[in-house]
């Protein structure tokens, strides 16, 4: 299907510096994500986690002042948001947007067809599509009524997050960035979401989990854990780093960073 091999570099960010409303949020951030890997980016509130997610997805009002980001060998920052999506980059929003009047299923189908069009595949068959959605909804334990509702319209916080994961499962992205997908979820919903993410893990794909808490990482085991603070990655390690952060908080990393 794809010619991406395990270990290929999917995302390479170097010296990324971003301003939001003239305030420097990211300040020389480096990150490399390879095919087959799951990365967790952790950090205190206000560290720039969401900014990183949104800027990688192409949010236009976030201004890149310096640095580069390459995705599958291409200059990511030169591509508009919709082109990034079509090339298989997916952002799961921390606060998914409600769009009354736009049907969930129609949006999903249009999104999938946009992706397939880019891959040179024909449009998805309407019947097969509905069957596929129903299967994945079952996996996400979502109610049938979802099919007839507007995008995230009147959804609870948990339903919105499940919907993000459902979209991800339908679109089968090469690189999924999930921005605080775990926030506001109870333990059962967290397991459902984790199950969805784990079902996507494959040698030719990668997942970046942006999270504040270690809790999600009990269910989705990361290959690498990074601490984001002061606009850059201050420390990287394996899963044990997440556990240590849970025990000791973030201050010691910041102190180390300041000393370095």
């Amino acid at each position, binding site marked *: 299907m794809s010619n991406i091999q395990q270990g290929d570099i999917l995302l390479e960010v170097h010296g990324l510096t971003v301003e939001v409303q003239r305030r420097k949020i990211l300040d020389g951030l480096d990150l490399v994500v390879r095919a087959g890997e799951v990365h967790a980016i952790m950090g205190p509130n206000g560290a720039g986690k969401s900014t990183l997610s949104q800027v990688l997805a192409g949010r*236009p009002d976030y201004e890149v002042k310096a640095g580069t980001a390459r995705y599958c060998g291409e200059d990511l920052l030169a591509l*508009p948001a919709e082109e990034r999506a079509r090339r298989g980059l*997916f952002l799961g929003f921390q606060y998914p*947007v409600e769009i009354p009047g*736009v049907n969930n299923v129609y949006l999903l189908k249009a999104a999938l067809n946009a992706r397939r069009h880019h891959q040179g595949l024909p449009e998805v068959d309407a019947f097969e599509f509905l069957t596929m959605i129903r299967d994945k909804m079952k996996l996400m334990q979502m109610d049938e009524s979802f099919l007839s509702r507007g995008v995230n319209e009147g959804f609870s916080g948990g339903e919105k997050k499940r919907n993000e994961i459902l979209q991800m499962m339908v*679109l089968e992205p090469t690189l999924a960035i999930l921005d605080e997908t775990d926030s506001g979820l109870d333990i059962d919903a967290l397991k459902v979401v984790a199950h969805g993410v784990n079902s996507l893990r494959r040698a030719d794909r990668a997942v970046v989990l942006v999270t504040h808490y270690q809790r999600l990482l009990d269910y989705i085991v990361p290959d690498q854990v990074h601490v984001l603070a002061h606009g850059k990655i201050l420390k990287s390690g394996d899963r044990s780093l997440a556990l240590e952060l849970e025990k000791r908080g973030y201050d010691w990393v910041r102190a180390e960073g300041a000393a370095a």
Partner: protein
Amino acid sequence: MSASPQATSPLAGLATALPGLPGGAAWAEWRRSALERLLAAGFPTPRDEPWKYVNTRLLGRRDLAPAPPRPLPTDSLAAAPAPAALFPRFVFVDGRFNAALSHPLGSGELPLSRFGERLEASTPGSLALPLAGDPQDVDERIRTLNACLAADGPVIVVPAGSRIATHLHVVHLATGGGAYPRTQIIVGAGSALNVVETHLSLGDAEAFVAAATDIRLGESANLTHTSLQIHGARSVLFDDVAVSVAANARYQHRLAALGGQLGRVDLRVALEAPGARAELAGLIFADGGREQHVRTLVEHRAGRTQSDQLYRGVAAERGRGSYDGRVVVHPGAAKTESRQSSRNLLLGRDAAFESRPQLEINADDVKCSHGATTGTLDEQMLFYLLTRGLERDTAKALLTYAFVRDVLRRVQPASVERAAEQRVLGRLPAAELLKEFVA
């Protein structure tokens, strides 16, 4: 004060149109005197507060004389919603009943008669619903103009305790020149009625329609009044509706006003007794060089009355629109509840929309709220759709469509909702990109 000299007033010369209208000598005299007072008062201008957004200069050279009967093209009702088979349909062409286009299907027992007949059988003062007040009051001028020149229109009187299951469909077709349909609806105590009204004009016709409607709901009566207005780009439509709602009765107005060269809906609702409710919702759509204005006045004259207004406006290209909504809570009308929501979308730099919700509260212990926003498409929604791979143009068209859907889905029955939606879709920028999203 409007003091347009008679010589240049759009009203000048209308006196010659008075002879030949239905009704006896007493009506003729009533009209002559009413027109005289209207001429003295003048046509409304933007200097009159409730007309401040309306470009009445457009009327300068317009022919307001009632249109003479003329042959119709065969497909003249093509734009009307709903297969005729679904509804009994009553068609008025330039304000006169047209039997050939009407389908009074299964309407044998329908409580419908014609205003023209009522005029012949009545004298001024003997009608259940008065036609107009004093044109010194700017709010009475369109009604007075209509009263002077109205020859016909539907009169629906539902006796107490009856339920009309079907939707009554009234179509007003304008072919050019003046048209003055008068509609009167009385719904008796405990009765329910659904009326769907469509205002159309023929292609490029330079029509001028001043329609007036009088509505009275008895205790616990229920009226759903749907109005679809799709006039051509050179046509003018003034639609003036006055409603009186008795205790525990409910009036619902659903509007899809898609503009002509100039369109204005003036909706005045009086909640007369405890438990009376009004629910007003509508789409105000102005594209090309069109203007579409909506003005509402809801008066809470008794306690425990409720009103809810939800209007969505879209102005595209050089379109101009407005929503001017005033709620008055009279002294002693405690426990009144009132909500007003006006959200408007500007598509294009030269488009304009004015929104002015106003509240005048003269009583204690009331719950009133209002909100208005006017702006371009929501950037967060747009970004969300882009991150799902949608083309920017498609995403924009989709958000515009969604904005419109949000109010059109309140329009009943579904066939009228679809008709309104099709018409709007046909005029949205890049609507052809929406094929995948529209059922």
